[in-house]
């Protein structure tokens, strides 16, 4: 294999396509595997794409003439999807002899566990397959034998703490992405409109199957800290519904609440960091390149912003914008995104300012200037690659503190408005019952927040060590010498 590549490297102006045609087997196999994996989730993917399309069209054209897309969205529900509650249902009842309505007649607990396990297996499998694809490309098809990024990726792959962080972060992402399928029930049925939905259960006294509204069932399944009124971890309520991590004080399924809450946290965290990161990068490049007045103004502005107490500002912000249109989007999440972006860019900017000032002094920036390259292109091509790594490090760490802030605000009862789930609200709801049998209400969301924030920090540490060629790794000193000059 290796020999092949060396003889081939003589005429190495071949395109990627030509290189694949020369040796098609690994590429074809990999692509077949990918298509297979994606087909399993075809329904969800098409449904999701159509939903986005319909949202875009709605935003662009208004509500008219949408029947085609609306129909398509409905139709796409019919496409079978492996990891959905339709394929592997967990809602059913015990009719005295056997389970009715669950997956293969298994108990709701096992049905749910099967689905949840499959979701995680599938997601990690897909990611592993993508990673494999990258390795195949790198080992067989890429023109360059080595690029500076390779070392960084290899260093990260040897970084246990960073990999733990990545694992936690990915698990969190999967939880948010698969929220509708992961919970034992859905947000609409269990939290949003519980009285609009009915479930069937087996009445022991009359030995008949009866119906009850979810709202009524929730009231009977509440966890209120006394042994008669508690649905704890891994237990059933009296309507044969399985609650993997128990219920909340009003009987809402905690896992469903947490899964949807993960979506909100993730949305706010990612969007505000993306926005703040964009502002920080633009300013970082400009202030490092032009220095002087631009730098001074930004320093003063960022100092002023950083001097503001975040939570106080957030409370003020939420109250001021209470009844405006912007507070309506996504139950107030968009408002928080804007707030956190405005508050967090100075921190990110300060973190990348040093590296940006460093890279602008490099000779290759001078060299680019000396052959007449425009400032914008110099910033993008010759400076940005050195800053992105730092941005990832500090960005991933800041997401953690944003998630904590959002939870803190919800704990105080502001920010994300009910009924939209938010982890902080679960912590707050369970607070009276911390020292009782219903400890799970506060403990589990609290633990998850800690875990996710730790994971994000670990991930950030991993990236930091990966992009720093001087950091200690198992990969010997020779590598350090060759990459020592990259400055990244």
């Amino acid at each position, binding site marked *: 294999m290796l020999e092949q590549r060396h003889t081939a*490297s*003589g*005429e*190495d*102006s071949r395109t990627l396509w030509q290189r694949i045609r020369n040796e098609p087997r690994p590429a074809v196999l990999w692509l077949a595997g990918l298509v297979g994996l994606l087909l399993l989730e075809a329904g969800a993917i098409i449904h999701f794409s159509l939903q986005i399309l319909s949202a875009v069209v709605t935003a662009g054209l208004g509500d008219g003439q949408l029947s085609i897309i609306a129909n398509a969205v409905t139709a796409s529900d019919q496409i079978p999807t492996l990891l959905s509650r339709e394929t592997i249902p967990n809602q059913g009842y015990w009719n005295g002899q056997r389970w009715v309505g669950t997956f293969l007649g298994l108990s709701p607990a096992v049905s749910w566990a099967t689905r949840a396990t499959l979701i995680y297996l599938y997601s990690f499998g897909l990611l592993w397959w993508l990673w494999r694809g990258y390795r195949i490309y790198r080992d067989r098809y890429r*023109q*360059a034998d*080595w*690029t*500076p*990024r390779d070392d960084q990726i290899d260093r990260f792959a040897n970084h246990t703490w960073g990999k733990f962080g990545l694992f936690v972060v990915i698990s969190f992402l999967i939880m948010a992405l698969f929220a509708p399928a992961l919970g034992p029930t859905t947000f609409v049925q269990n939290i949003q409109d519980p009285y609009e939905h009915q479930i069937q259960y087996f009445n022991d006294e009359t030995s008949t199957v009866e119906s009850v509204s979810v709202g009524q069932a929730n009231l009977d399944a509440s966890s209120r800290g006394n042994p008669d009124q508690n649905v704890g971890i891994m237990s059933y309520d009296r309507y044969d519904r399985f609650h993997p991590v128990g219920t909340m004080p009003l009987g809402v399924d905690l896992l469903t609440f947490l899964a949807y809450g993960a979506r909100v946290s993730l949305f706010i965290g990612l969007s505000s960091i993306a926005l703040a990161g964009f502002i920080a990068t633009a300013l970082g490049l400009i202030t490092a390149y032009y*220095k*002087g007045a631009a730098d001074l103004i930004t320093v003063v502005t960022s100092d002023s912003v950083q001097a503001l107490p975040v939570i106080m500002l957030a409370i003020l912000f939420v109250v001021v914008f209470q009844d405006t249109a912007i507070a309506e989007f996504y139950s107030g999440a968009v408002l928080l995104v804007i707030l956190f972006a405005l508050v967090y860019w100075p921190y990110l900017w300060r973190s990348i300012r040093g590296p940006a000032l460093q890279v602008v002094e*490099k*000779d*290759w920036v*001078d*060299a*680019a*200037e*000396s*052959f*007449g*390259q*425009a400032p914008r292109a110099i910033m993008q*091509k*010759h400076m940005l*690659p050195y800053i992105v790594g730092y941005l990832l490090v500090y960005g991933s760490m800041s997401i953690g503190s944003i998630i904590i802030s959002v939870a803190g605000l919800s704990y105080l009862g502001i920010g994300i408005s009910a009924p939209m789930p938010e982890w902080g609200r679960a912590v707050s709801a369970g607070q009276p019952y911390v020292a009782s049998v219903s400890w799970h209400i506060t403990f589990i969301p609290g633990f998850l927040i800690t875990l996710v924030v730790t994971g994000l920090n670990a991930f950030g540490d991993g990236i930091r060590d990966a992009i720093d060629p001087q950091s200690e790794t198992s990969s010997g000193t020779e590598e350090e010498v*060759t*990459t020592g*000059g*990259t*400055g*990244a």
Partner: protein
Amino acid sequence: MSGDPELRSETPLLEVENLRTTFYTDKETVRAVDGVSFSIHRGETVGIVGESGSGKSVTARSIMGLVESPGVVEEHSSIRFRDTARVRTFADQFDQHTIDMSDDDSAGARDETSFVVVEDRNEVGEISQGYIDIAQAPENAVRQLRGGDIAMVFQDPLSSLNPVYTVGNQIKEALRLHQGLRGNDATEEAANLLEAVGIPDAKRRLTEYPHEFSGGMRQRAVIAMALACDPEVIIADEPTTALDVTIQAQILDLLDDLQRTRDLAVMFITHDMGVIAEVSDRVNVMYAGEIVESAPVVELFKRPAHPYTQGLLNSIPGWQDDTERLSTIEGEVPTPTDPPTECRFAPRCPKAFEECWKVHPQAVTLDKGTTDHRAACLLYPDDLSTEQAIDQHTQSHNTEGDS
């Protein structure tokens, strides 16, 4: 080393006159380049030699318009670039900043923003002589000159190539910018350039990263990048300092070759007298921001006039015959912070006398017979008595002060 002086055109391609570049810091004002004048013709190599801190690199950066804050090129400095083709395009492009001195009626109306000067036109009215004053030109104009007209080769070939891009990528970046080449054309041309600077197997080399090149190869690649813009002037800022001696020789040969085939004007900066002797046609010796001696290369080595130049030559190993120890120049280059009122070399000068501390020497010809060998030292002109010489230095100093 190249170019017959007799065949050269009368007007130089690049004229630097009274260049002053000052760095204003909170602590002090550093006059890094303090009234430097020299010129370069097509096909000529002008060497600038001096110790670290003598202002060589700042001179180069001033010409490129790359002096960064807190550095400022002072108002009366002038850097005239006399490429007729470029003057023509600039006269069109920066119409409002152009002064036409060719017709006598409107001559002399020079306002502060003008930087293109038309001096003469031929029979059909095309511009035949003129210059662009880089010291006065705005950033967007200077950027057009960079690369395409004046290119620079930096000292450290490893750090002047961006390690995250392939060598080909970086050469093609310059090609796209100046010759509008893209895709396969650019690759083709980049390979040609690498071949032109003597890198074998150029096509494959284009896809490699800088770290995969040896030191000499990297410097060749950097030179290829400079050539990619097809410049008229190349400023080489210590291009061989980071290389070992055999590679140095190869790179010098390469530069010589390229200069011949492309009729380049080269400004060569180094602290190595040996390299200067090898490459230059004319040498300027810099000390503390000033040119202390300027002469054709052979003349300079045969008859070094300024005590500083003599000191530099004496400190080359192997030039002294019987001494056991290498002679050196004691002390180090002072940082010029104030306008000069004395000879800046006096504290280190073995021949310093009382007046050296009172009179700032001007560049004068060595004696009545020579025209192109000048030194800024009170010992000269040779054929005058010391008192007369000092008088001459004082007078020219005063007249300059009046202007």
